[in-house]
């Protein structure tokens, strides 16, 4: 894959990754700002859910972004 194709080839995975990272930042802030009552406890619990169950997806996305992008653009037009 040429360097020109690289951004397009990884864009979807990269933006997904960025989205999870931003969510993590906001959930961390929300968990920190949550009041000490039932509402705040629910917020912290949801944050814990995000970090435990959703954020790990970034690990897979990172691998996808770093993987050889030639597999995205390498197939010739005629092959479709």
């Amino acid at each position, binding site marked *: 894959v040429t360097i020109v194709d690289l951004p397009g080839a990884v864009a979807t995975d990269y933006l997904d990754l960025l989205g999870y990272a931003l969510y993590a930042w906001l959930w961390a*802030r*929300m968990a920190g*700002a*949550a*009041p000490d009552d039932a*509402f705040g406890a*629910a*917020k912290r619990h949801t944050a814990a859910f995000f970090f435990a169950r959703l954020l790990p997806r970034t690990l897979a996305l990172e691998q996808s972004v770093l993987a050889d992008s030639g597999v995205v653009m390498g197939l010739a037009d005629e092959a479709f």
Partner: protein
Amino acid sequence: MEYHPPRDDQAFLLFCLFDVKRAWRDIGAFGEFGDDLIRAVIDESGKLASQAIAPLNEPGDREGCRLEDGQVRTPAGFREAFAALAEGGWLGLSGNPEFGGQGMPKLLGCLIEEMFWAANASLYLYGTLTVGGSICIDAHGSAAQKARYLPRLYAGEWTAAMALTEAHAGTDLGIMRTRAEPHPDGTYRITGNKIFITSGDHDLADNIVHLVLARLPDAPEGTRGISLFIVPKYLPDEDGSAGERNAFAAGSLEHKMGIHGSATCVMNYDGATGFLVGEENQGLAAMFTMMNYERLSVGLQGLGAGELAYQAAVRYARERLQGRSPSGPVKRRRPGRSAAGACRRAPHAAHHACAQRRRARLRHVRRHAARPRQIRRRLPGPGLVGASHPHRQGLPHRPRLRVRRAGATGIRRPRLRGRVGRRADRAGCPDRPDLRGHQRGSGHGPDQPQGDPRRRRDAEGAARPICAGPSWRARASRAGGRRAAARRGGHRRGAGPRR
């Protein structure tokens, strides 16, 4: 669709997470906004969203928009709801105070938009484009254009639409073909076709201000040759009100998977009169002032849709009688803890919490219990119905009902009304081990009618007839069945005592 404004979450974001009052003080703006004002703004818009706008969501989507003689008709009630939105000043909330806007912080506007989106995305699409159009004109229009258009857009008397996409040019606007010919009077004649034009035509307001991208005759190639024009449906006359009809119309309505109450139009401009916004060939940058706002707003649309879906899911999980915990029947817990908890204990707690309502729903079904009419007539009254009663013995059980309902996991709610084949409020009754074993040991979930209903007995040891489903009459015609039930109202006693 039922929608409750997420007040606690909004207050949390404003006052705990973003600490808006300090943030606003730091930037030296909005200092006059106290907590009370902020809460009042949010509460009022929440009321409007949940009470006036949300109820139109589902009917509006079913009815959809129609194109009649070149004029788009919106679903019933949209006109009134949009008028309420406009009269409340919600479209000019963050607008320029110089031209009738309220100059409220955008952050507040975001929270409010989220609620309007959640309540009815179809309806608020007319609103968001109006807000976006006013932002664009405020940023790039001439003083005269601002004075002419902004007050009416802020007040919702007129709405706006953005016309970019052409059949062959969506994201790639550099190749668009719509032409703008200069006219001696200083205006332009716009000719071309645009697709996917949201709110391109409708009957909610007196005028629709299209912001159209077009190419001047000598324009350079690509995106550097695009200019932006105001093209109103009715040309403003001397005193600024909507006057002569402009030469463009909706050619058809686009087919969509949802938001059918929002008119997405194919627009045909046939030498329509347009007014240049900003500089020639600088149109794309000006349009993207609007586009960027719409991107933010459509993000909020997703947030609103998510909130609405979440609320519906929690309601459903609390009412749906389905499944059991892998670790066995869940003990009754304190009510109202968490959605997940509600899911776990739905077979028990939802039963108890909703027993009254469900009984009310079941009543008419039981009344119709499909037994021969004459036998029903002769059934003895409350307290006397026993397994030994000759007529009870011979009553047919209705396998049809069970077959119809067995194993269906995607049953729609109305069917739940007739599907609980036992006394709901006895589901976890400790003094009825026979009943519990009967119901829960089967592994088919508590809401599947199991076994012979005649075996179930009430506290006096008398078997009670169990709902056997709607009668064939009711099946043939629900309404007719109900009417028949009303006529045979006295037969209720045949179904035994109720609690």
